[in-house]
């Protein structure tokens, strides 16, 4: 809402400097977003109200004239102007006159450029000053003609004093609908500065025949229109509205049109009551011989009408219409119809001042994508009590400004009168909720500033809510008003004295924190990617040939999705946005991998090393209508050189499966998960020979490996290994140990013995190690696989694994012989269970 201060002053005195007033309003909830000062830049000693004494032809140019201007300071000056709105022979125009040296805006420049007025010669005639356009003064972009002021404008007064104004641009929250009007803002200013707003009770001089019988008003749907008031003004003369009104409308952000339309807009801005002016003579009766009729009803199926903006609109039966005997003439509270519009030919005007259902109005304007100044107000609610005062004031202005004759009385159809609400307020609630102590008298005085009337009640006050306060319904609303009036800054600042609620651990939060900390320690950067992906993105994680395979790509919602890792769900089974903003973000993801690959691709355009992780939710639909299961996953991507390239490592090797496996091991250690292992896995997203399931206990909780080269190509990634992991963090929650179990450190020396064995290459290393550990028992303290070898010295189909085994006792110094005894047992067991052959044991 744009509020010109000059207009506001008609209804309340401004007792504070503008900045202070703006601050006060802002703190009270009327956020002043900007203070615009009209005329603040006008030189008070160089720009004046002037009067054109004479307009003479320019001897050398047809399009230019010479204006002789008296500006009240010394001899009149002659200026050359091309303004089309003054003509030779005219005189008496009041203008904005700038003398040489004045700082103005260049009227011919596209952007706002300041210039200083210099004496000049135009086509041989010296020009001693300038008659200014709105653009040159920064009032608007209008440079068509010069400003013509009211005839009574005082010559010689600095223009800043006459035309200067301040506009408060106020951002209003939806509850402040009452302040979508000058009077509404005036009431707030009054309450905040300890005054009463001067709200008039409008009267109109009505000398015409009574309105009764001249219009018939029927409200067929009183649930959507609880009041329809109309006044009739005959014999108006359509023309421009006076300059002061045009100026106020412009300052408030509306475009002047003609005196009748401008009056309706002016009243809307002043009272907050939207009005509509019909050409009375175009309204048709319900039956031949009857008076013109207004019928307020819902639209019929298939009904259409053309609105003022020339658009032909389809109407639906939820929409409320104003119709006459012939058909629709307006969409109630949204926009008038083209047919009954006020035109140059209009003689008689019917003023509509009505009250429409806020929610219905909002739905209609949303359905039609048609938001008007009227619908903004109706959709937030207007008191029904306001229709008659607003219509009366409008009629009176049309009488005085358009020379009309007002019909006596108001045609007022009011099936649902506005009731005045009373709210019980218990003063002790002020202390209980706001934390300030106020007596009943103080509460009463505070509320009375806002025109609430308070009467004693058994347990407090009965507070009568003024009719213009539709937003106040319950005690809490009054508490807010009290807080607003006291000032939030004067409410004390205290520390919570309430009992501390039970404090609980949050294992998922703690887990996420430990995961992040471990991975950052491993050199990974944390990413946060969008929760939504494009419809095709997840499918692109699979080679096309695999997309029909229901074991890797699900097409139905359900609890089984939880067990799919990665969960690649057909887009139409995912949670999908009904109104996506862009095609890249339409589908709530069920796997983190697509997002991570996208981010990887973006980063690989400028670097060759990307090590990222994300802890975020995936959204797994459990059925086809309810909320999805939101599961927290971990995703990791690692690709590119193992270390940054440097003079020490000019050609670092690229990361592969085992770099990621190392991170997995570090992560499991950091989380204190002991019972985990991996199994070779096959999944088409991953490299066929470099993919593993991560199991905790017996449960698969993750999958990791190198990206399938086919998929890599589909994602347009450069030719380098890309390692990926996805893990269900919620699934490991129960396995994370908060406390480390301490192992005593032996005080006795250890014996280290190496062993190299040759086994079938199909036997997993983990199986070999399991047999070693199982056989080694308590004395075997550590197993390190330090060499894996296949080559000429090893039979085909076999491989050599070399281990370094550490033996140690907690009770004594172990002898070599004692260690060797265990060592040999392991060798024998490996031979028996796995067919392993010793390649050549060696002590160290």
């Amino acid at each position, binding site marked *: 809402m744009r509020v010109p201060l000059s207009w506001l002053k008609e209804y309340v005195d401004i007792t504070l400097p503008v900045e202070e007033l703006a601050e006060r309003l802002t703190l009270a909830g009327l956020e002043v977003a900007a203070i615009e000062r009209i005329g603040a830049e006008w030189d008070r000693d160089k720009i004046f109200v002037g009067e054109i004494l004479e307009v003479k032809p320019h001897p050398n140019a047809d399009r230019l004239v010479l204006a002789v201007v008296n500006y009240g300071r010394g001899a009149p000056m002659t200026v050359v102007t091309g303004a089309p709105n003054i003509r030779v022979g005219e005189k008496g125009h009041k203008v904005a006159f700038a003398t040489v040296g004045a700082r103005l805006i260049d009227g011919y420049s596209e952007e706002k450029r300041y210039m200083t007025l210099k004496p000049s010669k135009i086509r041989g005639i010296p020009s001693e000053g300038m008659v200014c356009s709105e653009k040159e003064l920064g009032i608007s972009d209008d440079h068509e003609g010069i400003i013509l002021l009211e005839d009574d404008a005082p010559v010689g007064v600095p223009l800043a004093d006459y035309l200067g104004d301040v506009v408060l641009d106020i951002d209003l929250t939806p509850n402040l609908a009452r302040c979508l009007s000058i009077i509404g803002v005036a009431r707030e200013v009054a309450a905040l500065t300890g005054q009463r707003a001067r709200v008039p009770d409008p009267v109109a001089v009505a000398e015409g025949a009574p309105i009764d019988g001249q219009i018939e008003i029927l409200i067929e749907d009183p649930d959507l229109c609880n009041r329809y008031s109309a006044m009739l003004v005959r014999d108006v003369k359509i023309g421009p509205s006076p300059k002061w009104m045009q100026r106020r409308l412009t300052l408030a952000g509306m475009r002047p049109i003609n005196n009748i339309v401008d009056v309706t807009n002016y009243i809307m801005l002043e009272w907050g009551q939207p009005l509509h002016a019909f050409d009375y003579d175009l309204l048709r009766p319900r039956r031949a011989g009857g008076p013109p009729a207004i019928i307020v009803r819902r639209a019929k199926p298939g009904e259409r009408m053309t609105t003022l903006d020339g658009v032909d609109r389809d109407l639906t039966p939820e929409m409320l219409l104003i119709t006459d005997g012939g058909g629709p003439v307006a969409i109630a509270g949204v926009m008038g119809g083209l047919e009954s519009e006020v035109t140059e030919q209009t003689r008689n005007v019917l003023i509509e001042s009505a009250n429409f259902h806020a929610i219905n109005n909002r739905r209609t304007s949303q359905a039609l994508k048609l938001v008007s100044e009227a619908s903004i107000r109706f959709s937030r609610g207007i008191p029904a009590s306001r229709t008659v005062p607003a219509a009366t004031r409008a009629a009176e202005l049309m009488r005085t400004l358009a020379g009309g004759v007002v019909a006596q009385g108001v045609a007022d159809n009011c099936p649902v009168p506005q009731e005045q609400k009373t709210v019980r307020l218990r003063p002790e609630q002020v202390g209980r909720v706001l934390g300030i102590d106020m007596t009943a008298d103080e509460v009463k005085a505070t509320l009375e500033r806002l025109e609430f009337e308070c009467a004693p009640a058994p347990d407090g006050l009965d507070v009568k809510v003024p009719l213009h306060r539709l937003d106040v319904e319950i005690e809490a609303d009054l508490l807010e008003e009290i807080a607003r009036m006291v000032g939030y800054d004067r409410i004390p600042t205290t520390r919570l004295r309430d009992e501390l609620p039970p404090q609980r651990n949050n294992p998922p939060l703690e887990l996420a924190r430990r995961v992040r900390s471990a*991975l950052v320690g491993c050199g990974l950067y944390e*990413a946060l990617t969008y929760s939504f992906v494009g419809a095709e993105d997840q499918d692109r994680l699979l080679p096309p040939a695999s997309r029909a395979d229901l074991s890797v790509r699900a097409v139905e919602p359900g609890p089984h999705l939880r067990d799919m890792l990665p969960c690649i769900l057909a887009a139409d089974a995912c949670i999908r946005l009904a109104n996506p903003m862009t095609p890249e973000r339409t589908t709530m993801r069920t796997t983190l991998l697509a997002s991570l690959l996208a981010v990887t691709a973006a980063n690989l355009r400028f670097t060759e090393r990307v090590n990222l992780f994300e802890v975020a939710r995936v959204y797994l639909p459990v059925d086809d209508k309810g909320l999805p299961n*939101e599961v927290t996953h971990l995703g990791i991507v690692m690709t590119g050189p193992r270390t940054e390239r440097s003079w020490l490592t000019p050609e670092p090797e690229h990361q592969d499966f085992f770099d990621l496996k190392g991170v997995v091991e570090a992560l499991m250690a950091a989380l204190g998960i002991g019972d985990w292992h991996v199994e070779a896995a096959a999944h088409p997203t991953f490299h066929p020979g470099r993919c593993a399931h991560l199991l905790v206990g017996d449960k698969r909780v993750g999958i990791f490996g190198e990206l399938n080269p086919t998929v890599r190509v589909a994602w347009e990634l450069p030719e380098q290994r890309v390692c990926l992991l996805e893990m269900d963090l919620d699934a490991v929650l129960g396995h994370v140990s908060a406390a480390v179990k301490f192992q005593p450190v032996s005080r006795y020396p250890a014996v280290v013995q190496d062993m190299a064995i040759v086994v079938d290459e199909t036997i997993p290393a983990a199986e070999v190690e399991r047999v070693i550990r199982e056989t080694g028992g308590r004395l075997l303290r550590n197993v390190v696989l330090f060499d894996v070898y296949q080559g000429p010295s090893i039979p085909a189909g076999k491989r050599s694994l070399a281990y370094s085994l550490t033996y140690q006792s907690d009770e004594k110094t172990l002898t070599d012989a004692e260690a060797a005894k265990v060592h040999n047992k392991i060798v024998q067991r490996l031979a028996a269970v796995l067919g392993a052959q010793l390649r050549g044991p060696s002590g160290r």
Partner: protein
Amino acid sequence: MLEQLSDIRERAMAALAAVDSLTALDAWRTEYLGKKSFVTAALKSIGQLPPEDRPVVGKAAHELRLALEAALEEARQRVLALEQERAAQAERVDVTLPGRPATLGRLHPITQILYEIYSIFAEMGFQVYDAPEVETDELNFQLLNLPPDHPARDMWSTFYTTRDGILLRTHTSPGQIRAMRQFCPEPIRVILPGRVYRYEAVTARSESMFHQVEGLAVGPRITMADLKGVLTDFARRLYGEHRQVRFRCSYFPFTEPSMEVDVSCALCDGAGCRVCKHTGWVEIAGAGMVHPQVLRNGGYDPEQFTGFAFGMGPDRIAMLRYGIDDIRYFYSDDLRFLAQF
């Protein structure tokens, strides 16, 4: 003979002083104490001397040998130190060469801010409570006093899903209802962090996904003065203890009274600058006393309980703190961005 011994002593000592390597030291030992050395020869030849000379020469030769041996030992220590010094010198490096790359990862700046917020509120007894991001219209709006077609719904541009009544939460506030329904009738102090979504075009200033942290306290004796206290303490800890905190009346359908919270701009100290849009204040949170109907919707009797709630945006906090002028950086995950925090 004695004179010769004396000469030898002088020569040997002089030569030893010049020795500066273990190799030279070895050569010196061979020359003066070796099998072919004069001293050894002198000692061997004592038997051939006249008997009366033998004790004198023998003693002198023996003394010389002991003296040379002692000097040798002394010189060995000196030369060893020299050798070590020389070896170390040979390993001298250009200390200005870059180090071996050590890669420590980084947390996303939003995570860092979130963790900071958690820890500040944890000390005031507020614990983290998680709520879903895909929500029902009922929880996101209706139970927060936003029935269908309420004009205030315009304050939240919403992503709806193709499922009836299900949307992406536009704020963390639906978590208030979930927390209340879970904990009622216990008193509550929680913060609810997480992702929220708005149907908005992505620009430097607005994102379709960002983060919020909601706070909720419910109890028998909670006042608006307490709310001011908690947010003032919070703001001073996060933004600096000298910051001014301002509470402005505002509107949220689920709180009453409602307020916006501003801190004095840290960049210009309240004088007015681009960041604070020349107001001297930066908006950091929306807050208010929980609306009685919302308390009821959560299961609490508003005659017995009061509560406050607040919401803030970690993305915005991070932008202010680090001087980031484009919110799109946060979810582009450009390593050149992530590596800075």
